[in-house]
Protein backbone atom coordinates (compact mmCIF):
# COMPACT_ATOMS: atom_id res chain seq x y z
CA UNK A 1 0.00 0.00 0.00
CA UNK A 2 1.64 3.18 -1.17
CA UNK A 3 0.61 5.20 1.85
CA UNK A 4 2.72 2.91 3.93
CA UNK A 5 5.96 2.82 2.06
CA UNK A 6 8.75 3.94 4.32
CA UNK A 7 9.79 7.35 3.05
CA UNK A 8 13.37 8.43 3.49
CA UNK A 9 12.94 12.13 4.37
CA UNK A 10 10.60 11.44 7.29
CA UNK A 11 12.97 8.83 8.68
CA UNK A 12 16.03 11.05 8.17
CA UNK A 13 14.35 13.94 10.03
CA UNK A 14 13.98 11.75 13.10
CA UNK A 15 17.41 10.14 13.26
CA UNK A 16 18.38 11.81 16.55
CA UNK A 17 15.18 10.51 18.12
CA UNK A 18 15.48 7.06 16.61
CA UNK A 19 19.21 6.50 17.15
CA UNK A 20 19.86 8.44 20.35
CA UNK A 21 16.48 8.80 22.06
CA UNK A 22 16.64 12.59 22.06
CA UNK A 23 13.61 14.06 23.79
CA UNK A 24 12.66 17.41 25.26
CA UNK A 25 13.31 19.10 28.60
CA UNK A 26 11.21 22.07 29.65
CA UNK A 27 13.51 24.62 31.27
CA UNK A 28 10.52 26.39 32.76
CA UNK A 29 8.83 23.54 34.69
CA UNK A 30 11.34 20.68 34.43
CA UNK A 31 9.03 18.30 32.53
CA UNK A 32 10.70 15.77 30.23
CA UNK A 33 8.97 14.43 27.17
CA UNK A 34 9.42 12.17 24.19
CA UNK A 35 9.49 13.36 21.53
CA UNK A 36 10.49 16.96 22.08
CA UNK A 37 7.55 19.27 21.41
CA UNK A 38 7.70 22.93 20.51
CA UNK A 39 5.49 23.73 23.49
CA UNK A 40 5.65 22.04 26.90
CA UNK A 41 2.44 20.01 27.36
CA UNK A 42 2.48 20.78 31.10
CA UNK A 43 3.15 24.53 31.31
CA UNK A 44 2.95 25.67 27.67
CA UNK A 45 6.39 27.22 27.85
CA UNK A 46 8.25 27.36 24.55
CA UNK A 47 11.55 27.01 26.37
CA UNK A 48 11.95 23.29 25.57
CA UNK A 49 15.49 22.07 24.95
CA UNK A 50 16.70 18.86 23.32
CA UNK A 51 18.00 16.32 25.81
CA UNK A 52 19.21 12.76 25.51
CA UNK A 53 16.98 10.49 27.58
CA UNK A 54 18.14 7.57 29.77
CA UNK A 55 18.51 4.32 27.91
CA UNK A 56 17.12 2.08 30.64
CA UNK A 57 13.63 1.63 31.95
CA UNK A 58 10.88 -0.85 32.67
CA UNK A 59 7.81 -2.19 30.88
CA UNK A 60 4.60 -0.44 31.99
CA UNK A 61 2.26 -2.44 29.76
CA UNK A 62 2.62 -4.51 26.61
CA UNK A 63 0.88 -6.54 23.94
CA UNK A 64 1.84 -9.37 21.63
CA UNK A 65 0.89 -8.66 18.01
CA UNK A 66 -0.48 -11.68 16.13
CA UNK A 67 -1.94 -9.84 13.12
CA UNK A 68 0.75 -7.49 11.79
CA UNK A 69 0.55 -4.53 9.46
CA UNK A 70 2.30 -4.66 6.07
CA UNK A 71 6.07 -4.94 6.55
CA UNK A 72 6.05 -6.67 9.93
CA UNK A 73 5.05 -10.18 8.86
CA UNK A 74 8.62 -11.41 9.43
CA UNK A 75 8.65 -10.43 13.12
CA UNK A 76 5.22 -11.82 14.05
CA UNK A 77 4.45 -12.54 16.83
CA UNK A 78 6.24 -9.57 18.37
CA UNK A 79 5.94 -7.64 21.61
CA UNK A 80 5.18 -3.92 21.75
CA UNK A 81 5.45 -2.05 25.02
CA UNK A 82 5.15 1.26 26.77
CA UNK A 83 8.47 1.78 28.57
CA UNK A 84 9.00 4.10 31.51
CA UNK A 85 12.60 5.30 31.40
CA UNK A 86 14.62 5.86 34.56
CA UNK A 87 13.70 9.55 34.62
CA UNK A 88 9.97 8.79 34.30
CA UNK A 89 9.66 9.70 30.60
CA UNK A 90 7.59 7.25 28.59
CA UNK A 91 8.36 5.86 25.16
CA UNK A 92 6.78 3.20 22.98
CA UNK A 93 8.60 0.54 21.02
CA UNK A 94 9.18 -3.06 20.13
CA UNK A 95 10.86 -5.49 22.51
CA UNK A 96 13.65 -7.65 21.12
CA UNK A 97 15.95 -10.47 22.25
CA UNK A 98 13.09 -11.99 24.23
CA UNK A 99 10.50 -14.69 23.68
CA UNK A 100 7.17 -12.80 23.60
CA UNK A 101 5.73 -15.23 26.15
CA UNK A 102 8.39 -14.13 28.67
CA UNK A 103 7.40 -10.47 28.61
CA UNK A 104 5.80 -9.14 31.76
CA UNK A 105 5.01 -5.83 33.40
CA UNK A 106 7.95 -4.45 35.32
CA UNK A 107 10.51 -6.14 33.08
CA UNK A 108 13.73 -4.12 33.12
CA UNK A 109 14.93 -3.18 29.65
CA UNK A 110 17.56 -1.10 27.86
CA UNK A 111 17.57 0.62 24.50
CA UNK A 112 19.35 -0.93 21.57
CA UNK A 113 19.44 -0.15 17.84
CA UNK A 114 17.84 -2.66 15.51
CA UNK A 115 16.38 -2.90 12.05
CA UNK A 116 12.71 -1.87 12.34
CA UNK A 117 11.40 -2.00 8.81
CA UNK A 118 12.42 -2.15 5.18
CA UNK A 119 10.73 -0.59 2.21
CA UNK A 120 10.37 -3.30 -0.39
CA UNK A 121 13.21 -5.33 -1.82
CA UNK A 122 15.28 -2.38 -3.00
CA UNK A 123 14.10 0.39 -0.67
CA UNK A 124 15.55 1.97 2.43
CA UNK A 125 16.22 -0.01 5.60
CA UNK A 126 15.21 1.88 8.72
CA UNK A 127 17.10 1.30 11.96
CA UNK A 128 15.79 2.66 15.23
CA UNK A 129 15.47 1.95 18.94
CA UNK A 130 14.08 -1.26 20.29
CA UNK A 131 14.26 -2.44 23.89
CA UNK A 132 15.88 -5.63 25.16
CA UNK A 133 15.87 -7.17 28.62
CA UNK A 134 18.81 -6.30 30.89
CA UNK A 135 21.27 -9.13 31.19
CA UNK A 136 21.33 -10.77 34.62
CA UNK A 137 24.33 -9.24 36.34
CA UNK A 138 26.36 -10.47 39.29
Amino acid at each position, binding site marked *: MWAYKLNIPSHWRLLSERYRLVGGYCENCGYKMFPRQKVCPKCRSENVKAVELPKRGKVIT*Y*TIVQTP*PRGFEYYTPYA*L*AIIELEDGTR*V*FGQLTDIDPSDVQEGLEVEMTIRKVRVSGESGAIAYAYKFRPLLERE
Partner: protein
Amino acid sequence: MQKPIIAGVGFTKISAHWKSSLKDLASEAALKALNDAGNPEIKAIVVGNMMSGIINGQENLGSLVAESIGLQGVPSVKVEAACASGAAAVMWACLSVLSGIFESVLVVGVEKMTDVTDNEDMSSALATAADYDYEVFFGATFPSLNAMIMRSYAEKYNLSPEDFGHLPILMHKNAVDVAHAQLRFPITMEGYLNSPVISDPLKLYDSAPIGDGAAALVITSRDGAGNLDHAVEIAGFGSATDTLATYRREDITSLMAAKLATKRALSMAALEPKDFDIVQIHDAFSVIGYLNLEALGIVEKGKAHKFIASGDADRSGALPVNPEGGLKARGHPVGATGVYQIAELALQLSDRAGPSQIENPNVGVAMNIGGTGANVIVHVLRRIE
Protein backbone atom coordinates in the same frame (compact mmCIF):
# COMPACT_ATOMS: atom_id res chain seq x y z
CA MET B 1 -30.38 29.37 21.45
CA GLN B 2 -32.49 27.52 18.88
CA LYS B 3 -31.16 23.99 18.64
CA PRO B 4 -30.50 22.27 15.30
CA ILE B 5 -32.87 19.45 14.47
CA ILE B 6 -32.57 16.20 12.60
CA ALA B 7 -35.28 16.22 9.94
CA GLY B 8 -34.38 13.04 8.10
CA VAL B 9 -32.20 9.95 8.38
CA GLY B 10 -31.07 7.27 5.95
CA PHE B 11 -28.50 4.51 5.87
CA THR B 12 -27.40 1.41 4.00
CA LYS B 13 -27.04 -2.05 5.44
CA ILE B 14 -23.49 -2.60 6.69
CA SER B 15 -21.86 -5.44 4.83
CA ALA B 16 -19.10 -6.37 2.40
CA HIS B 17 -20.80 -4.56 -0.50
CA TRP B 18 -18.70 -6.00 -3.30
CA LYS B 19 -20.93 -4.54 -5.99
CA SER B 20 -21.18 -1.03 -4.54
CA SER B 21 -18.59 1.75 -4.61
CA LEU B 22 -18.07 4.45 -2.01
CA LYS B 23 -20.13 6.75 -4.24
CA ASP B 24 -22.95 4.19 -4.55
CA LEU B 25 -23.19 3.78 -0.78
CA ALA B 26 -22.97 7.51 -0.03
CA SER B 27 -25.64 8.44 -2.57
CA GLU B 28 -28.00 5.67 -1.40
CA ALA B 29 -27.86 6.88 2.19
CA ALA B 30 -28.07 10.54 1.17
CA LEU B 31 -31.15 10.07 -1.02
CA LYS B 32 -32.91 8.12 1.74
CA ALA B 33 -32.23 10.90 4.26
CA LEU B 34 -33.37 13.61 1.85
CA ASN B 35 -36.55 11.70 1.12
CA ASP B 36 -37.16 11.11 4.83
CA ALA B 37 -36.83 14.86 5.43
CA GLY B 38 -39.33 15.71 2.68
CA ASN B 39 -36.63 16.86 0.22
CA PRO B 40 -35.81 20.30 1.63
CA GLU B 41 -33.41 22.57 -0.25
CA ILE B 42 -29.90 21.60 0.87
CA LYS B 43 -27.57 24.56 1.35
CA ALA B 44 -24.40 22.62 2.24
CA ILE B 45 -23.03 19.08 2.55
CA VAL B 46 -20.54 17.73 5.09
CA VAL B 47 -19.01 14.30 4.40
CA GLY B 48 -17.50 12.26 7.23
CA ASN B 49 -14.86 9.75 6.12
CA MET B 50 -11.50 8.55 7.35
CA MET B 51 -9.62 6.46 4.80
CA SER B 52 -10.88 7.09 1.25
CA GLY B 53 -7.51 8.42 0.10
CA ILE B 54 -5.64 5.36 1.31
CA ILE B 55 -8.21 2.67 0.56
CA ASN B 56 -10.10 3.91 -2.46
CA GLY B 57 -7.55 6.32 -3.95
CA GLN B 58 -10.20 9.02 -3.78
CA GLU B 59 -10.24 12.29 -1.89
CA ASN B 60 -12.32 15.40 -2.60
CA LEU B 61 -15.37 13.52 -1.35
CA GLY B 62 -17.30 16.77 -1.00
CA SER B 63 -17.52 17.07 -4.78
CA LEU B 64 -17.94 13.33 -5.30
CA VAL B 65 -20.96 13.12 -3.01
CA ALA B 66 -22.59 16.36 -4.19
CA GLU B 67 -22.37 15.31 -7.83
CA SER B 68 -23.60 11.79 -7.07
CA ILE B 69 -26.96 13.16 -5.90
CA GLY B 70 -27.28 15.93 -8.46
CA LEU B 71 -26.31 18.69 -6.06
CA GLN B 72 -23.25 20.02 -7.87
CA GLY B 73 -23.12 23.71 -7.06
CA VAL B 74 -23.78 23.13 -3.37
CA PRO B 75 -20.84 23.75 -0.99
CA SER B 76 -19.54 20.38 0.17
CA VAL B 77 -16.41 19.26 2.05
CA LYS B 78 -15.06 16.19 3.82
CA VAL B 79 -14.09 16.33 7.49
CA GLU B 80 -11.84 13.76 9.13
CA ALA B 81 -11.24 12.82 12.75
CA ALA B 82 -10.24 9.15 12.37
CA CYS B 83 -13.01 6.88 13.71
CA ALA B 84 -14.86 10.00 14.94
CA SER B 85 -15.14 11.44 11.41
CA GLY B 86 -18.89 10.74 11.35
CA ALA B 87 -19.69 12.67 14.51
CA ALA B 88 -17.27 15.38 13.39
CA ALA B 89 -19.33 15.83 10.22
CA VAL B 90 -22.52 16.06 12.30
CA MET B 91 -20.95 18.60 14.63
CA TRP B 92 -19.79 20.82 11.75
CA ALA B 93 -23.26 20.57 10.20
CA CYS B 94 -24.76 21.69 13.52
CA LEU B 95 -22.34 24.62 13.70
CA SER B 96 -23.26 25.56 10.12
CA VAL B 97 -26.95 25.55 10.91
CA LEU B 98 -26.46 27.41 14.21
CA SER B 99 -24.42 30.07 12.42
CA GLY B 100 -27.51 30.93 10.41
CA ILE B 101 -25.56 30.77 7.17
CA PHE B 102 -26.84 27.37 6.02
CA GLU B 103 -30.43 26.55 6.90
CA SER B 104 -30.40 22.89 5.86
CA VAL B 105 -27.27 20.76 5.78
CA LEU B 106 -26.85 17.19 4.56
CA VAL B 107 -24.40 15.02 6.50
CA VAL B 108 -23.09 11.85 4.88
CA GLY B 109 -20.78 9.46 6.72
CA VAL B 110 -19.26 6.82 4.50
CA GLU B 111 -16.49 4.22 4.54
CA LYS B 112 -15.86 1.68 1.79
CA MET B 113 -13.38 -0.65 3.48
CA THR B 114 -13.53 -3.88 1.49
CA ASP B 115 -11.78 -2.42 -1.57
CA VAL B 116 -8.73 -3.48 0.46
CA THR B 117 -8.62 -7.27 0.46
CA ASP B 118 -5.41 -7.96 2.44
CA ASN B 119 -5.51 -7.89 6.23
CA GLU B 120 -2.03 -6.34 6.38
CA ASP B 121 -3.10 -3.40 4.23
CA MET B 122 -6.33 -2.90 6.21
CA SER B 123 -4.29 -2.96 9.38
CA SER B 124 -1.96 -0.28 8.01
CA ALA B 125 -4.85 1.91 6.85
CA LEU B 126 -6.59 1.76 10.25
CA ALA B 127 -3.31 2.50 12.03
CA THR B 128 -3.26 5.98 10.47
CA ALA B 129 -5.50 6.90 13.43
CA ALA B 130 -2.45 6.51 15.69
CA ASP B 131 0.89 8.40 15.78
CA TYR B 132 2.81 7.39 12.66
CA ASP B 133 6.29 8.52 13.74
CA TYR B 134 6.23 7.15 17.27
CA GLU B 135 3.79 4.21 17.20
CA VAL B 136 2.97 2.91 13.74
CA PHE B 137 6.56 3.12 12.49
CA PHE B 138 7.47 0.52 15.13
CA GLY B 139 4.79 -1.96 14.08
CA ALA B 140 1.85 -0.77 16.15
CA THR B 141 -1.55 -1.76 14.84
CA PHE B 142 -4.73 -0.09 16.03
CA PRO B 143 -5.81 -3.25 17.92
CA SER B 144 -2.36 -3.49 19.56
CA LEU B 145 -2.72 -0.05 21.15
CA ASN B 146 -6.17 -0.94 22.44
CA ALA B 147 -4.77 -4.25 23.70
CA MET B 148 -2.33 -2.36 25.93
CA ILE B 149 -5.21 -0.31 27.30
CA MET B 150 -7.14 -3.55 27.91
CA ARG B 151 -4.23 -5.16 29.78
CA SER B 152 -3.72 -2.09 31.98
CA TYR B 153 -7.45 -1.80 32.69
CA ALA B 154 -7.78 -5.50 33.55
CA GLU B 155 -4.81 -5.28 35.93
CA LYS B 156 -5.95 -2.08 37.59
CA TYR B 157 -9.53 -3.19 38.24
CA ASN B 158 -8.93 -6.93 38.42
CA LEU B 159 -11.09 -7.98 35.47
CA SER B 160 -11.08 -11.57 34.22
CA PRO B 161 -11.21 -12.47 30.49
CA GLU B 162 -14.93 -13.30 30.97
CA ASP B 163 -15.62 -9.78 32.25
CA PHE B 164 -14.78 -8.36 28.82
CA GLY B 165 -17.12 -10.83 27.10
CA HIS B 166 -20.37 -9.38 28.48
CA LEU B 167 -20.36 -6.40 26.11
CA PRO B 168 -19.80 -8.23 22.78
CA ILE B 169 -22.34 -10.88 23.80
CA LEU B 170 -24.99 -8.20 24.43
CA MET B 171 -24.10 -6.41 21.19
CA HIS B 172 -24.53 -9.58 19.12
CA LYS B 173 -27.83 -10.36 20.88
CA ASN B 174 -29.12 -6.88 20.02
CA ALA B 175 -28.14 -7.03 16.35
CA VAL B 176 -29.97 -10.26 15.49
CA ASP B 177 -33.23 -8.52 14.47
CA VAL B 178 -31.67 -5.30 13.12
CA ALA B 179 -32.00 -5.24 9.33
CA HIS B 180 -29.03 -2.94 8.70
CA ALA B 181 -26.64 -4.72 11.08
CA GLN B 182 -23.59 -6.58 9.77
CA LEU B 183 -23.26 -9.46 12.27
CA ARG B 184 -26.77 -10.72 12.95
CA PHE B 185 -25.95 -13.80 15.00
CA PRO B 186 -25.64 -14.40 18.74
CA ILE B 187 -22.34 -15.39 20.36
CA THR B 188 -21.75 -17.27 23.62
CA MET B 189 -19.21 -16.74 26.39
CA GLU B 190 -17.48 -19.91 25.26
CA GLY B 191 -17.34 -18.60 21.71
CA TYR B 192 -15.97 -15.28 22.96
CA LEU B 193 -13.27 -16.89 25.10
CA ASN B 194 -12.20 -19.22 22.29
CA SER B 195 -12.05 -16.56 19.58
CA PRO B 196 -8.55 -16.00 18.14
CA VAL B 197 -6.17 -13.59 19.83
CA ILE B 198 -5.39 -10.60 17.60
CA SER B 199 -3.05 -8.74 19.90
CA ASP B 200 -2.78 -10.30 23.33
CA PRO B 201 -4.96 -9.99 25.42
CA LEU B 202 -7.37 -8.59 22.82
CA LYS B 203 -9.44 -11.18 20.95
CA LEU B 204 -11.27 -11.16 17.63
CA TYR B 205 -14.61 -10.99 19.47
CA ASP B 206 -13.48 -7.88 21.36
CA SER B 207 -13.21 -6.12 18.01
CA ALA B 208 -15.66 -4.47 15.64
CA PRO B 209 -15.75 -6.02 12.15
CA ILE B 210 -14.60 -4.54 8.83
CA GLY B 211 -17.49 -3.48 6.66
CA ASP B 212 -18.87 -1.00 4.16
CA GLY B 213 -21.66 1.43 4.90
CA ALA B 214 -23.01 4.93 4.64
CA ALA B 215 -25.40 6.89 6.86
CA ALA B 216 -26.90 10.31 6.29
CA LEU B 217 -28.81 12.99 8.18
CA VAL B 218 -30.58 16.17 7.18
CA ILE B 219 -29.91 18.79 9.84
CA THR B 220 -31.92 21.99 9.74
CA SER B 221 -32.94 24.92 11.82
CA ARG B 222 -36.42 24.81 13.26
CA ASP B 223 -37.53 27.16 10.51
CA GLY B 224 -35.89 24.96 7.91
CA ALA B 225 -37.87 23.57 5.05
CA GLY B 226 -39.18 20.05 4.95
CA ASN B 227 -41.30 17.64 6.85
CA LEU B 228 -40.66 17.86 10.59
CA ASP B 229 -43.17 15.24 11.79
CA HIS B 230 -40.47 12.94 13.13
CA ALA B 231 -37.80 15.53 13.86
CA VAL B 232 -35.47 15.17 16.82
CA GLU B 233 -33.52 17.94 18.52
CA ILE B 234 -29.74 18.01 18.87
CA ALA B 235 -29.78 19.44 22.36
CA GLY B 236 -26.02 19.59 22.78
CA PHE B 237 -22.69 18.54 21.43
CA GLY B 238 -19.17 18.57 22.79
CA SER B 239 -15.76 17.70 21.52
CA ALA B 240 -12.26 17.34 22.92
CA THR B 241 -8.80 16.06 22.01
CA ASP B 242 -6.07 14.16 23.85
CA THR B 243 -2.51 13.19 22.94
CA LEU B 244 -2.35 11.51 19.54
CA ALA B 245 -0.18 8.69 20.90
CA THR B 246 -1.47 6.38 23.61
CA TYR B 247 1.89 6.17 25.45
CA ARG B 248 1.93 9.94 26.05
CA ARG B 249 -1.12 9.82 28.35
CA GLU B 250 -0.66 9.88 32.09
CA ASP B 251 -3.40 7.28 32.62
CA ILE B 252 -4.20 5.07 29.65
CA THR B 253 -7.12 3.46 31.53
CA SER B 254 -9.18 6.63 31.41
CA LEU B 255 -10.43 8.69 28.46
CA MET B 256 -9.74 12.30 29.38
CA ALA B 257 -11.10 13.71 26.11
CA ALA B 258 -14.27 11.62 26.41
CA LYS B 259 -14.96 13.08 29.84
CA LEU B 260 -14.37 16.64 28.60
CA ALA B 261 -16.54 16.14 25.51
CA THR B 262 -19.35 14.70 27.65
CA LYS B 263 -19.16 17.60 30.07
CA ARG B 264 -19.34 20.11 27.23
CA ALA B 265 -22.25 18.36 25.49
CA LEU B 266 -24.23 18.09 28.74
CA SER B 267 -23.54 21.70 29.59
CA MET B 268 -24.87 22.86 26.22
CA ALA B 269 -27.94 20.62 26.61
CA ALA B 270 -28.43 21.66 30.27
CA LEU B 271 -28.79 17.98 31.15
CA GLU B 272 -27.05 15.44 33.41
CA PRO B 273 -26.05 11.80 32.97
CA LYS B 274 -29.11 10.73 34.96
CA ASP B 275 -31.29 12.18 32.18
CA PHE B 276 -30.05 9.63 29.61
CA ASP B 277 -32.71 7.13 28.48
CA ILE B 278 -30.60 5.48 25.79
CA VAL B 279 -26.88 5.37 25.11
CA GLN B 280 -24.75 4.83 22.00
CA ILE B 281 -21.19 3.94 22.96
CA HIS B 282 -18.16 3.49 20.70
CA ASP B 283 -17.39 -0.18 21.36
CA ALA B 284 -14.71 -0.58 18.69
CA PHE B 285 -13.08 -2.81 21.31
CA SER B 286 -14.73 -4.13 24.49
CA VAL B 287 -12.46 -2.15 26.80
CA ILE B 288 -13.13 1.08 24.92
CA GLY B 289 -16.86 0.46 25.32
CA TYR B 290 -16.35 0.18 29.07
CA LEU B 291 -14.25 3.36 29.17
CA ASN B 292 -17.06 5.15 27.28
CA LEU B 293 -19.59 4.21 29.97
CA GLU B 294 -17.25 5.58 32.65
CA ALA B 295 -16.58 8.80 30.77
CA LEU B 296 -20.32 9.35 30.21
CA GLY B 297 -20.82 9.29 33.98
CA ILE B 298 -23.01 6.19 33.83
CA VAL B 299 -20.83 3.78 35.84
CA GLU B 300 -18.01 4.05 38.36
CA LYS B 301 -14.46 3.27 37.28
CA GLY B 302 -13.88 -0.45 36.86
CA LYS B 303 -17.60 -1.29 37.18
CA ALA B 304 -18.80 -1.17 33.56
CA HIS B 305 -18.69 -4.95 33.08
CA LYS B 306 -21.00 -5.40 36.08
CA PHE B 307 -23.45 -2.90 34.65
CA ILE B 308 -23.54 -4.77 31.32
CA ALA B 309 -23.78 -8.21 33.00
CA SER B 310 -26.63 -7.04 35.25
CA GLY B 311 -29.05 -6.67 32.34
CA ASP B 312 -29.53 -2.94 32.98
CA ALA B 313 -28.08 -2.18 29.55
CA ASP B 314 -30.45 -4.55 27.70
CA ARG B 315 -33.17 -3.10 25.47
CA SER B 316 -35.67 -3.65 28.29
CA GLY B 317 -33.22 -2.54 31.00
CA ALA B 318 -32.95 0.66 33.00
CA LEU B 319 -30.56 2.26 30.51
CA PRO B 320 -30.34 0.50 27.12
CA VAL B 321 -26.90 0.59 25.49
CA ASN B 322 -26.51 0.23 21.71
CA PRO B 323 -29.91 -1.44 21.07
CA GLU B 324 -28.91 -1.92 17.40
CA GLY B 325 -25.76 -3.85 18.31
CA GLY B 326 -23.14 -1.10 18.41
CA LEU B 327 -19.87 -1.14 16.54
CA LYS B 328 -19.30 -4.77 17.48
CA ALA B 329 -22.35 -6.21 15.73
CA ARG B 330 -24.23 -3.47 13.86
CA GLY B 331 -20.83 -2.77 12.36
CA HIS B 332 -18.15 -0.10 12.14
CA PRO B 333 -17.62 1.38 8.67
CA VAL B 334 -15.25 3.79 10.31
CA GLY B 335 -16.09 7.26 9.01
CA ALA B 336 -19.81 6.41 8.87
CA THR B 337 -20.12 5.04 12.39
CA GLY B 338 -20.76 8.32 14.19
CA VAL B 339 -23.57 9.10 11.75
CA TYR B 340 -25.11 5.63 12.23
CA GLN B 341 -25.06 6.16 16.00
CA ILE B 342 -26.92 9.47 15.71
CA ALA B 343 -29.30 8.19 13.02
CA GLU B 344 -30.24 5.24 15.25
CA LEU B 345 -30.80 7.56 18.21
CA ALA B 346 -32.98 9.82 16.06
CA LEU B 347 -35.13 6.83 15.06
CA GLN B 348 -35.40 5.72 18.70
CA LEU B 349 -36.42 9.22 19.85
CA SER B 350 -39.14 9.40 17.20
CA ASP B 351 -40.40 5.85 17.87
CA ARG B 352 -39.32 4.63 14.43
CA ALA B 353 -36.64 2.10 15.38
CA GLY B 354 -38.70 -1.00 14.58
CA PRO B 355 -37.68 -4.22 16.37
CA SER B 356 -34.94 -2.46 18.33
CA GLN B 357 -37.31 0.26 19.63
CA ILE B 358 -37.01 0.83 23.37
CA GLU B 359 -39.88 2.15 25.45
CA ASN B 360 -40.49 5.87 25.18
CA PRO B 361 -36.99 7.38 25.36
CA ASN B 362 -36.68 11.17 25.65
CA VAL B 363 -32.95 11.79 25.82
CA GLY B 364 -30.18 9.90 24.07
CA VAL B 365 -26.42 10.31 23.93
CA ALA B 366 -23.88 9.16 21.35
CA MET B 367 -20.11 8.98 21.91
CA ASN B 368 -17.83 8.67 18.90
CA ILE B 369 -14.11 8.13 19.47
CA GLY B 370 -11.22 8.83 17.10
CA GLY B 371 -7.98 6.96 17.71
CA THR B 372 -7.61 5.38 21.13
CA GLY B 373 -9.31 8.43 22.65
CA ALA B 374 -7.38 11.19 20.89
CA ASN B 375 -10.48 12.84 19.41
CA VAL B 376 -13.90 12.46 20.99
CA ILE B 377 -17.25 13.92 19.96
CA VAL B 378 -20.46 13.56 21.96
CA HIS B 379 -23.97 14.45 20.85
CA VAL B 380 -27.03 14.64 23.09
CA LEU B 381 -30.38 14.24 21.33
CA ARG B 382 -33.85 14.99 22.69
CA ARG B 383 -37.35 14.06 21.59
CA ILE B 384 -39.46 16.94 20.31
CA GLU B 385 -42.87 16.73 22.02
